[in-house]
């Protein structure tokens, strides 16, 4: 069944200020404690270049974590548009951590279990707190629109320059 909307986290890393509030509120919302080691979203940094990139689960359609799970504990919840872990089935083998191409599946050593983004059941706290909108919650079909528009403008400018050369 196709859901009416299919919302995803859109990460616009150029806007990220590197403050890591998303990590804090993710941990507080899910576990009631402050500890970025519990966060499902992590800001990866290259401080010497001033580059900050928030990384979170992409909720892949054909998710490697789901394919790799030996006990079938990871499934796609189409209603919430997310990949989720059934902790009743999970054996904690961390295969999903090893195969995730985004490093977005984490192992929480305090509770000894894997953790991943669950989109906060439709109200992602990282999005709620990110004032600069480096992380937004958008319809998957619209994710490319802004980028397309920027590219189109670039193309138009390039065309204009080419025309001027003639």
């Amino acid at each position, binding site marked *: 069944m196709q859901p009416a909307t299919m919302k995803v986290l859109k990460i616009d890393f*150029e*806007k*990220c*200020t*590197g*403050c*890591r*509030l998303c990590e*804090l*509120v993710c941990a*507080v*919302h899910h*576990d*009631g*404690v*402050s*500890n*970025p*080691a*519990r966060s499902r979203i992590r800001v990866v*940094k290259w*401080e*010497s*270049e*001033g580059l*900050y990139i928030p990384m979170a689960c992409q909720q892949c359609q054909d998710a490697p974590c789901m394919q790799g799970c030996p006990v079938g504990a990871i499934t796609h919840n189409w209603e919430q548009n997310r990949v989720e872990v059934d902790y009743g089935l999970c054996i904690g083998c961390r295969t999903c951590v090893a195969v995730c191409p985004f490093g977005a599946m984490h192992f929480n*050593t*305090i509770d000894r279990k894997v953790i991943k983004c669950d989109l906060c059941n439709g109200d992602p*706290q990282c999005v*709620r*707190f990110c*004032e*600069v909108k480096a992380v937004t919650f958008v319809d998957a079909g619209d994710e490319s629109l802004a980028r397309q528009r920027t590219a189109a403008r670039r193309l138009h400018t390039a065309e204009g320059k080419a025309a001027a050369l003639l």
Partner: protein
Amino acid sequence: MALNRKIAYIDLSTNTVETRPIPLEIRKKFLGGRGLDAYLLYNHAPAGCDPLGPENVLIISAGILTATCASASARTHIMAKSPLTGLLGSTNMGGFFAPELAWAGFHHLVIKGKAAGPVYLFIHNGEIEIRDAAHLWGKTTTDTQWAIRSELDDEEVKSCVIGPAGENLVRFANVMTGIKNAGGRTGMGCVMGSKNLKAVAVRGTLDIRLAHPAQALDFNKKFIDQITSAKVNQIQGKLGTPFIWGATNCWGGLRTNNFQYNQLEDADDIEPERLDEIATETMGPHHMAACFGCQVHCRAQYKIPAGPYAGKYDEGPEYTSLGAFGAEAGCRSAVTVLTGNHLVDQYGMDNLETGSLIAWAMELFEKGILTARETDGLDLRFGNDEALLEMVHRICARQGWLGDTLADGGIPAAEKIGNNAFDYLIQVKGMNNLHSDERATPALALNVATSSRGSDHLRSRPAIDLYHLPEEVLRKIYGTPVPYDGPLSSDHTSYTGKPWMVFWQENCYMAVDCLGICKYHTVFLGATLPNFEDWPRVIELNTGLKLSPTDIWQIAERGNMLERLFNLREGLTRDDPKKGDTLNHRYFDEPCLRGAPDVIGLSIDRDRFNAMIDEFYEIKGLDKNGLPEPRTLERLGLAQEPSHQL
């Protein structure tokens, strides 16, 4: 729990480490951060100790709210006896170090002794290791941090470090974390250098339990909305603190050519909008960065666009670097400001003190008190950008007669230079003033004269005095949490009611420094921002500690009084030009020559200034000489100090 974070006592002479919990009754008296640091310093540093001797105590701390769900609770505080002033050493910086320290299990590190050779500390989830740092000695501040990460194979390690200036015992060497977060004032990097302590590295993944997490989360959102709705923070988020420089220069409140003028003319190249253009050209449109958990994001990222350091990445420059490498030295080039900012960041040297001392030397050169003989041939005239930057190198390396002399700080340098060099030194208690000029603003003059760490704008400055807010608005702010029905004036040139405003701000900033949050999140530059009435809720939701606004006020008053007790013990007297609550004579004798009509021609009136000091002392519960009345110490619970409970 935030309240279960511990104190670690580390003795570098004996390689011993001891950890202790912080009793609740101590928390209720000093909270954490700077307040508790003052308690620890007063109790652990022997009276009259040599600031560079092993008996001096270096304290590095987080605030009580650090790394909780409280907005911008990222500040690290560092305290010791200052090798620059011989009085209280205290400095505060943003970044990501303090939260990591809290996640590693600690709120306060008390570092004593002196290591036999270079070492660094590695603090990881409750464990503390003293490691060899011989291979790090000589490295710049960022190279040191990246080398530690590489050695520990962990990109998430946060370190506070010294650079070559701290190693060379430059008296105003700072402590750095990240690219540009600087604990700049009072030479805390010099104390680290004297202990052979190159860095403190931390990594923590321990939970901090919150008392009421869901409510704390919602309250944080409300707090952030309040903070980001302030216009002043919106402009900070776009232009950073240079916006203050632009506004203040327009008005005529900036020291120029040391202290000869109060406005830099023809300064288009270093106006905030120009710096924003450079940041945009070199780093793109989204070039603002933030400290941990902060939505104000006031740090610009930039690359130096030209000159010998072209292409180097850094952050800032702050308001203070624009003075240090701009107006004070009579320089007007963005490349010079950005380069100077980069050099002090890399060397680990306080930008304010560095710029101010060089500007002072430039005036002495102009007056013939210094000559080419002392400058080793350097043409140290105002507006000579190359000479300014050359002096930054020389001070860090203690190279040449003047470089070595200035590296010892203003007062020792003045004594060495002789003649009347001291008369031109814009200092209080041995620490130079930042580049602001307070001759038109008695409240701000009182603030710099009485600040506990020497001339400073972040201890008690009623900056909103410049906004000419209606008296009823001032009364609403300054009339709580302790009732005040004395006079208040909206006029920045007035002497009326200013001692109370300075006293209120002194308590406000102490409270903020105990909580571990940033001053842009309280009544500093914005009148609508949170203060005493707003803090009890955020403290309770995050830590479970129940305090009233007046409780917090009294804790702050206690912390300030303890800092004063420390200064009195180390030689502060009211009128001592080198260690007192005094100002350079030029504040009184030389009127402002430039600026707006309500600035030009103004200077501080000596008698009225002294009357302000009298009133300020009386409000604080001090006698005419600035000594606390016995009943004041009783009221604040300080009569038994040092009480050696921790």
